[in-house]
């Protein structure tokens, strides 16, 4: 075993670091949708031009064709710049793109993949529905075949960036039969189609991270179906396991950074006794140290997972372990920060505020064990698929 990156990998990291230092956007990311879209796409285009788009994507689709290790290095370095997530480009790069690579026709790939890498388009995801959360396959948004089109009516929810997206990876029910997993279709929806209504959802943290999307007889060409009508569940599942791969690394690096920032805050902020800094409180100090240890373990698990992927090439349910561990640590860090700041806990400060906001971060942390599969669902997956427990 070793922790040494190969000379090529070390050089790759150097290149990434240098390039990022020179190219990272200096201006503030706009908060209003149109400006945000322009910012995110522009930044993606810059990466594309620099040769950093699709590091682990196959060369045939415009990627660099490198390994997950390089992808990991990129995400680590990227997160260290303190930039927000890959945001509006996330679904395209980490969900829709990889799904298309696995399941789409050559024509579909040729059209969409380069556009994603180049930062021409924003993608969003249309999976969850009000009645189909953890039980995704219970989705009921209906699609009827009419000539060479699907006619879609229904509602999706928790769709990030629906308000600025060009395309959506959309799951619809084309056949209602005995098995809820059969009869689902995965289709590319043009978000500018008539009949689509997008409404933002305000979160407990403040701000609108998600949207609801309503479909009223939206017409989508049948040629936009990926993987065949009624066979969308299999298509969607390939995306879901990709979601818990290395794309997650940036979150982790950011959490590690949050812990370090919290330690800094605890050095300066008065502790529970009002006299000594919070970090001199035995309980707070131990919880900070525990968070540090757990964040370190999270990285070690990620590294081990990447090594496993390099050997077997099929991401397993271990991704659920990472996701669960990450969520629980993130929530504890959220709570701990509230104890560090004491009576300042009454002041709402956005986690995007300069210097960071611990109350905003606390409320945000509640999303970590819900979004992308609740912690309960992750525990089910681990119990069933990793440990082989009976259902």
């Amino acid at each position, binding site marked *: 075993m070793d922790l040494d990156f190969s000379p090529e990998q070390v050089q790759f990291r150097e290149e990434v670091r240098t390039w990022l230092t020179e190219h990272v956007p200096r201006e503030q990311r706009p908060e209003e949708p149109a400006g945000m879209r322009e910012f995110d796409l522009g930044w993606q285009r810059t990466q594309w031009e620099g040769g950093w788009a699709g590091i682990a994507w196959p060369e045939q689709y415009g990627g660099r064709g490198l390994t997950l290790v390089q992808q990991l290095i990129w995400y680590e370095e990227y997160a260290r710049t303190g930039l927000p997530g890959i945001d509006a480009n996330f679904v395209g790069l980490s969900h829709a793109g990889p799904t298309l690579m696995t399941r789409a026709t050559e024509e579909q790939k040729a059209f969409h993949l380069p556009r994603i890498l180049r930062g021409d388009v924003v993608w969003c995801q249309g999976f969850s529905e009000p009645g189909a959360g953890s039980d995704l396959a219970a989705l009921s948004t209906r699609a009827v075949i009419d000539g060479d089109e699907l006619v879609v009516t229904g509602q999706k929810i928790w769709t990030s960036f629906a308000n600025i997206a060009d395309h959506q990876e959309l799951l619809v029910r084309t056949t209602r039969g005995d098995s809820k997993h059969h009869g689902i279709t995965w289709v590319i929806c043009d978000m500018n189609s008539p009949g689509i209504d997008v409404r933002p*959802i*305000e979160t407990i943290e403040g701000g609108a991270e998600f949207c609801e999307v309503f479909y009223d007889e939206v017409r989508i060409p049948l040629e936009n179906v990926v993987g065949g009508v009624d066979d969308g569940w299999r298509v969607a599942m390939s995306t879901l396991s990709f979601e818990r791969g290395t794309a997650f690394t940036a979150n982790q690096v950011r959490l590690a950074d949050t812990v370090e920032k919290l330690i800094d805050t605890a050095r300066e902020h008065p502790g*529970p006794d009002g006299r000594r800094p919070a970090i001199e409180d035995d309980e707070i100090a131990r919880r900070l140290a525990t968070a540090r240890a757990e964040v370190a373990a999270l990285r070690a698990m990620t590294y081990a997972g990447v090594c496993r992927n390099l050997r077997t090439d099929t991401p397993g349910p271990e991704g659920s372990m990472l996701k669960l561990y990450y969520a629980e640590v993130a929530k504890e860090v959220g709570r701990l920060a509230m104890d560090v700041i004491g009576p300042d*806990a009454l002041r709402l400060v956005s986690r995007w505020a300069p210097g960071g906001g611990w109350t905003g971060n606390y409320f945000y942390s509640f999303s970590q064990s819900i979004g992308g599969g609740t912690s*309960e669902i992750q525990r089910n997956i681990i119990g069933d698929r990793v440990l082989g427990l009976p259902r």
Partner: protein
Amino acid sequence: MDLLPSRDQLELTAAAAEFFSEQVPIAGIRARRDEPASLDTKTWLAGAELGLLGLSAPEEVGGSGLGLDDEALVFREIGRALAPGPFLGTVLGARLAVLAGRPDLAASMVDGRTAVALAELRDGSVGPEGLGGRLDVLDPEGSTYVLVLGEDGAALVETAALGDLEPLAGIDPGTRLASATVGAASAACWLPADQEPLRLRALVLASAMLVGIAEAVRDQASDHAKNRVQFGRPIGVNQAIKHRCADMAVAAEAALSQTMFGAVALQSGRADREFQVLAARIVSSRAALDGASANIQIHGGMGYTYEHDAHLYLKRAQVLDHLFLQRTDALGGLLAQAAAQ
């Protein structure tokens, strides 16, 4: 020995609960989020009319002369309903005024004309001669006085005497927050702690509100668990949900029992009253915070939306958890007591 509400008390709390659910619906918190005051004057006066501000005040000042147990039961309903407005400050302010020999002032608080905001001393001191330092003020809009608890006693200080208040973004959309820095402001009334442990009384009422929150989230989570269907069955069949609801129920029951125990212990002047009140605050804070957090998780994505009530319980619980005494001080204070009687 009786720790359960009497028939009179059940009637009283039912009336209060009805008032809040009809006049002060939780949705109003969202609707009024950008208003200067968290509660409108008309509703405030209607509450006063109903007698909510004078439950434990003597009849001479327009009160009902009831006990702290009655008052705690009503504050449990205030907590359950997440009712905004300066109920806590005004009720405590009226008691302070009565005991400090200002029945006139108390009467104007009991009938709702004079509202009292809560002010938490962040730095500085308060005493018979007055107040100086940095304060967080809760719901100052429309208040004539602020109530400040210090180590040696409690003071009413004119809100106007605090100078310019700096409004802050608070975590709870149902509680307005402002900051004040005061050079020297005189106390309109002063009540020494050795005459009356007003802080303990304040803690009982805050604990009762936390109990109400703990019960409300237990009920909201249980209802959701019964009605939300996933994988073809209500999610409450899953132990991950069911057992969490059970834990919420146990914590709420413990918090309720201990809070009523604390209320009666303080009222009857038991030797271990401070022990019992601090214990009440500790278990009720935990029940409300843990319960409100679990409630969000049980509601999944819906629980993370502003439109749902789940976050409002958590945010109010956080505010109450910081009132009158920090949690760590409550724990330290409890450990410093002699064993329970």
